[in-house]
Each structure stands twice: as C-alpha cells, then as structure tokens.
C-alpha cells in the first residue's frame, strides 16, 4: 500500500485521520513534514519557506495563548506577535485571526474576524488563506480542524503544538515553548534577509 502523505487538499469530504493512515508523531527534537519524521530544524526551515512564499500567511492563535492565564501563555503571546510582525513586514497580506473558543456558533461565525474549529474552511475560503499555523489550540479541536481544512481546502497547515504534535498538519512541531516560537521567527527572518524568499515554494 502506498504510504499516506499529509498534503494540501481538497482531499475528500471526510479525509482519514492521518494517524489511522500510519502517520506517527515525532519524538522530542523532531518534527514532521507531510507525515515524514524530520529533525526539528528541517521542519523550521520548511515552515519559514512556506510562510514567506504564501500569498496570505496566517496565524490562528487559540485559547491557550489568547488568554493570559499563566506566565508561559503571556510569553507565547509575545513570541506569536513577533512572528506575525515579521510575516507582515514581508507581506502586507499576512493575517492574525483568533480561534477564541470552540463552541458551535449560531447561525454562523464572522469569517473576517475569527476561525471556528467546527467549520474552519469558512475562514480559510473567505480570506483566501494559503498557509496557516495553529498555535494554542487544544489537541482534539486542532486535529479535527486540521482534518477539515485538508478535506475541503488547498491551504497548507502548520501546527505549533505544546504537546506531542499533530499528524493532521502538513508540518508539525512539538513541545512548543516561547523560545521555540522565537526560533521560528529567527528562521523566517534569516530566510527573508537572505532574499531567497520569493522563489521558495516547497514541493508538496
């Protein structure tokens, strides 16, 4: 059987959970790209490339970082804002759209100002987002949402996960700390300054 790769969709109305298709989570110090385990630095470089070559690079901060419920969350917020600022300085179309909670909102969300895990595709379609990063979203909601995005959109997904990573994202990091997010900021800055960022669309 051909190895399942976690790639941008639209894949199917109900794409499989990548874990059920044999994709495993990285160990500490690793990440994955399209389901393939790689050293974390390689995942950093790839994420930086994807962000810089995107038309609408977007960060989706979730409740774990939107709210200042402990010092770590506060520091992560600062790091995420730094990432957004560097993306915005490169591409004025960069977006920062919150996922403030997970409730099914009625009758529907305003896709201009938020993303909801139950229908993330609305926000992605509306804003024509082609690369996004989840950060601070609880595991179950992130997995579900990443799967829906893969199923119904062509958006490239990155997960900056504080736990063990996400099989359902195209690039995943694990054990996210404020320092790790800042490392990604540095990777983006380095690549941007090297001028290589305009023709860096990775191969899917």
């Amino acid at each position, binding site marked *: 059987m051909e190895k399942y790769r976690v790639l941008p969709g639209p894949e199917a109305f109900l794409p499989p959970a990548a874990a059920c298709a044999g994709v495993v989570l990285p160990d500490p110090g690793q990440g994955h790209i399209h389901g393939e385990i790689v050293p974390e630095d390689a995942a950093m470089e790839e994420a930086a490339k994807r962000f810089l070559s995107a038309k609408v690079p977007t960060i989706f901060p979730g409740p774990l*970082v939107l*709210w200042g*419920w402990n010092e770590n969350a506060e520091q992560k917020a600062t790091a995420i804002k730094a990432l957004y600022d560097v993306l915005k300085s490169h591409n004025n179309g960069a977006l920062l759209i*919150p996922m403030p909670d997970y*409730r099914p909102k*009625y009758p529907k969300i305003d896709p201009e100002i938020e993303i909801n895990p139950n229908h993330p595709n609305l926000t992605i379609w509306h804003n024509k987002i082609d690369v996004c990063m989840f950060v601070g979203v609880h595991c179950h909601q992130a997995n579900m949402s990443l799967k829906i995005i893969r199923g119904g959109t062509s958006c490239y997904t990155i997960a900056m996960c504080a736990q063990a990573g996400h099989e359902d994202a195209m690039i995943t990091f694990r054990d996210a700390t404020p320092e790790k997010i800042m490392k990604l900021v540095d990777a983006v800055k380095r690549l941007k300054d090297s001028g290589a960022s305009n023709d860096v669309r990775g191969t899917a």
Partner: protein
Amino acid sequence: MDKEKIKINPEFYDIMPVEYQELVENATYGKEDRGWKDVGSSKELIEEHSLCAGCPESIAFRHILASLPNPEETVMVGSTGCTSLVFPHIALHNIHSLFGNQNAVASGLKRALAYRFPDKIKDVVVLAGDGATVDIGLDMTLQSWFRQEKFATICFDNELYANTGGQESGLMQKGFVGKMAPAGKQFEKVDMPGLAKTSGCHYVAMLTSSKPNRVEKVIRNAVLIAREIGPTYVQIYTPCILEIGKQMMEGLQEMRDSEGPGQRFEYQEFITDEAKAYMEAKHPKKKRKKKRVEEKKVD
C-alpha cells in the same frame, strides 16, 4: 475574586471578537452583589443560546447565571437534553456528563476540587432536565443526597423529554398526552421536592422562572448552603412551549398560570434549622439600598 483568569493577552486584545472584550470589561465576575438586575446593564455570562425562540429555559438560565455568588470559582455540571445546547455558550467552567450521571460526576468533582484547592471556595452546581434528574439519573441524584455531597442540584422541569421529542418523564403530570407518549401518563407526577427533603437536602425550593428576584434568592441560597452544609435541590418549571403547543410569547403566562395557590408549581421552600442558622450567621440577607423617591410637590 477578580478577573485575573480572564485576561486577554495584550498582543491579541484588538483582534478578539467584541463579545470577549465585553466579557473582560463588563461582566459581573468578582462582584459580591451580583443578581438578575445586572442583566441588561452588564455583559451576561451567557453569550447566545440555541434553544427554541421564547423557551423559558433560556430566561431561567440567564437569571441563574446572573445570580451565582461566585461564578469564577464555580463549575457547572450539565447533562444531555435541551440545556446541554446552552452550556457551550456560557462563560463559566462546565462539564457535560453522560445523560443521568450528572450528580455522580458532580460528587467526584466537588471532592477533587476540595482536595486540590483546599484554600479556595469552589462551588459545584448541577443543572439538568427532569428526564436526567428524576428518571435515568434518579439513582445518582438520590445517592448524592444520601451521601450529603456538597453541591446544588437544579432541575429544569419541563415535564417531559423535550430534546428527544416529548417522551413521558417522571415529572410529567398524570393524564398528559405527549407527542411521544400517546397513551397519556398513567401515574402521578413524582414528588421530587418531597424526596429531596427525606433524602437529606438542606434546602429545597420549587418555583417557576416567572419571577427573576425569586430565582435569584433561591439560587443564592441553594449554592451557599451547599457550599458548607450539604446538598440542596431546586426545581424550576420551564415549560417546553414547543411540546405543549404554546407560542413563543406564551411561556411567561404559562408559568404564571401554574404557580398560583393550589397549582402544581405553587412556590415551596424548605430549609433545615442548620442551614437557616448558617445563612443568618454567614450570609445575612442583602440589604438593598432603597432609592429615596422625592415626591414632586404639586402646588
């Protein structure tokens, strides 16, 4: 008691949807004298609800949330039913339990919170329908009272299983024909307040949600007494307008018609001597500031 836990990180304040900005600025967390009168002038702890338009459960829910004495340190436990559609929209910690298990879940939760946070006051409040409380969860409900678990149980009594289309419940009136109970109820409505009293509840009240100040008083008593003395039970008539064939504006009148003298929802309140002494000592009645109305003198 403050808003420490609901601080939006400043980096994200401007991108948060307005309902969250209002919540941290204008909700009544940390306010000692919260109550139903804050509804309309403060940000409510319920954002929106997905109940039928005009459903009395929705107004009862709003007044209950406005009346909780310590919302930031309160965990509500819900169960399957129409109420469970509202829980995702409230700005309060809550757990959805398997249908009927709510009082068992709340028992464990209350004990765990007491163990984990010995220096903090943590209130646990169950809110479930009559099917969950009196039928499928009756065992768990009564056992938690026998064991003197310290949390409040609120039952939204709409006298049937509304969420599944109108099956018969223990709290349905005798003779009532439900959409899914065509033979009509053969037995009397279960006397749940009576069972609560004999099972060890220290405070029991039965009411409708037609009078917000009464709802406020009862909820405050139930939560405060449960905090230190023992279990409490509140049964509120929240008629299912959909199942009894009423229009959305008719819920209030239905409640008024059912709470008069001799009616099945005539106001009942019971308090043990112990609970009464505790309330008088620790939570004396709020003295409302009386507004002096200057009478206009007419020459």
